[in-house]
């Protein structure tokens, strides 16, 4: 907030591009006697309210990608997360469709509104990932797509006459679905996460967790956490980006205890104890999606939407995008991309090589 009073142009840009402090949940409208040295109340803290109003007016973008083998409940989970039919499953995709021969990228956008706040949500699906007999390099189309979005944003940014609000199609969050084998990660999981944890925020999720008992679940989670650590895979929230002690303790707890979240998704409602809940009905009981004793869906939802949504966007913009930008500008000799020394258009940076495990 040390920018002083901004002019109108950067004001709108501020809510999107410039790092802003994470808004505290309760917005105090009156001074609470924080700084006894102030002779009176100035009103600096009302900026939070101003930002809130602006955000409500402009709305914001959020792009979430789901990756995993077919049948792990990706589409259902996204629908459950945003309590609407936003995934590929809902829009005219026939469940009887064949598995595509190569990995496809399908992005579907929706506008969701809640409490006056509009969110332009884009769900990026990746059918065909991990489904073939030969899955070598099946992450390349995904990496290419992510880099292409960075490239698009970079091009807009370096334009002389650039738009007031650059449309943000960059992938803010990638949910990676781990198959609940109960044993360990699969080689494909490791390879994917190794390659992509450097370009995008990866949140590993254990799919269809109703297949494991409580013991099996905690053993599996521990094993997965250990494997990710041993192989040097930094999933979101990354340790190196914790800003202060408060962040660190909060994120440490999530990293070491809760993640990866073991989830169950459902878009059907059943009556349990007089309430209507989202769940799955089996001959031996009803699995409640939002019941913390049954699965960790509620934790995932709170994490992604209620507490870390803005942080996901920030890390994408300040870290992943900046890394891409720096590399591009370096490769181009400091010149803006798209214009070589002779005015030729240069191609975007190819996929990052696999980092060796530390």
């Amino acid at each position: 907030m040390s920018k002083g009073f901004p002019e109108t142009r950067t004001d709108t840009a501020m809510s999107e591009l410039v790092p802003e402090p994470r808004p505290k949940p309760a917005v105090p409208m009156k001074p609470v006697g924080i700084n006894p040295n102030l002779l009176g109340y100035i009103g600096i803290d009302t900026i939070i309210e101003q930002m809130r109003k602006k955000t409500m007016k402009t709305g914001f973008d959020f792009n979430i990608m789901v990756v995993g083998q077919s049948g792990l409940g990706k589409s259902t989970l996204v629908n459950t997360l945003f309590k609407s039919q936003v995934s590929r499953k809902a829009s005219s995709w026939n469940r009887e469709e064949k598995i595509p021969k190569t990995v496809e990228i399908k992005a579907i956008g929706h506008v969701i509104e809640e409490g006056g706040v509009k969110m332009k949500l884009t769900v990026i699906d990746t059918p065909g990932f991990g489904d073939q007999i030969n899955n070598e390099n099946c992450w390349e189309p995904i990496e290419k797509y992510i880099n292409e979005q960075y490239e698009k944003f970079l091009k807009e940014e370096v334009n002389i006459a650039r738009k007031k609000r650059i449309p943000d199609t960059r992938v803010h969050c990638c949910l990676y679905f781990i198959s609940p084998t109960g044993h360990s990660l699969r080689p494909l999981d490791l390879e994917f996460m190794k390659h992509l944890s450097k370009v995008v925020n990866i949140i590993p999720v254990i799919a269809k967790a109703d297949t494991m008992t409580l013991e099996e679940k905690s053993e599996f989670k521990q094993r997965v956490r250990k494997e990710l650590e041993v192989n040097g895979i930094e999933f979101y929230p990354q340790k190196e980006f914790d800003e202060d002690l408060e962040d660190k303790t909060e994120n440490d707890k999530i990293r070491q205890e809760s993640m990866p979240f073991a989830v169950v998704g459902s878009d059907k409602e059943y009556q349990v104890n007089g309430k209507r809940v989202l769940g799955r009905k089996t001959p031996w009981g009803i699995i409640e999606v939002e019941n913390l004793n049954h699965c960790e869906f509620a934790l995932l939802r709170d994490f992604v939407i209620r507490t870390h949504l803005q942080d996901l966007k920030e890390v994408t913009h300040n870290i992943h995008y900046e890394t891409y930008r720096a590399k591009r500008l370096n490769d181009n000799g400091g010149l803006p991309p798209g214009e070589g020394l002779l005015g030729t258009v240069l191609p975007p940076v190819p996929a990052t090589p696999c980092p060796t495990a530390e």
Partner: protein
Amino acid sequence: MSKQQPTQFINPETPGYVGFANLPNQVHRKSVKKGFEFTLMVVGESGLGKSTLINSLFLTDLYPERVIPGAAEKIERTVQIEASTVEIEERGVKLRLTVVDTPGYGDAINCRDCFKTIISYIDEQFERYLHDESGLNRRHILDNRVHCCFYFISPFGHGLKPLDVAFMKAIHNKVNIVPVIAKADTLTLKERERLKKRILDEIEEHNIKIYHLPDAESDEDEDFKEQTRLLKASIPFSVVGSNQLIEAKGKKVRGRLYPWGVVEVENPEHNDFLKLRTMLITHMQDLQEVTQDLHYENFRSERLKRGGRKVENEDMNKDQILLEKEAELRRMQEMIARMQAQMQLQLQGGDGDGGVHGHHV
């Protein structure tokens, strides 16, 4: 000479009774003494509950010192074949059960070669049996041929995966395939029915030949006929395995304890475990027969057709040997003739020597 009346051998109580109806009992007694052999192969991706299911089916622990490798180790590994044999005895009937496990199947990023090892194992067993059968001592032929293959299909997909289709097509002419949907407690009843139908449709679409239960004979009792009908309608079986005893409804049952309820392994409303076990037990004999009469015979005729070339080579060798032997014979004959000629010369020239008692004048 009095002609022996056929009436002497007839059981005086039943006219026309010879007594060979007793044959099945004799066969039965001999078989029970000999014991049965059965080889079951289990194939499927890691983590589908194969080992747990086998342990549940045979109420034993076939894998006591099991170490599950991590993902990084799996990257280097190829498909292994591990056979464990266990002798089970029940009411005097001995069963020598061999379970062939295939760890590493479906784990690699590129699974193109992952069924070569399995196919060569099956062929090896056929080859060995063929060799033993054609040998001199046929008394104790060990039958290690794979009689049945449980193929585990993941319940998480929407049907068969490309790997499933490719594998089943590669082995459906070599072994009886019984498709099994693993970890069936992941599915609601509706999802289960949909998945089963989808799998059956895909099996038909790709012309995969799975093992078909033979229809009950018309002279079997109604219960058996009904049971067979039920079994046939439930393929592929969706199973849950467990050897843990859980307390449910006042009694101890084998099952899995979840926060939302208990899945009972032996409850036919929860999963098809009992049906799978019944099918295996009541059709063990048929599985062996089909292996012998269909798969083995296929292999044998293919092998002998190919091996025909090999036999010709041996014939040629024999001819060569004969020729060589004849040549040697001729050489020896020539040598003898030469020696005889030499002796003649010596005899003729031996007059002056006086060393030879000649008969010349």
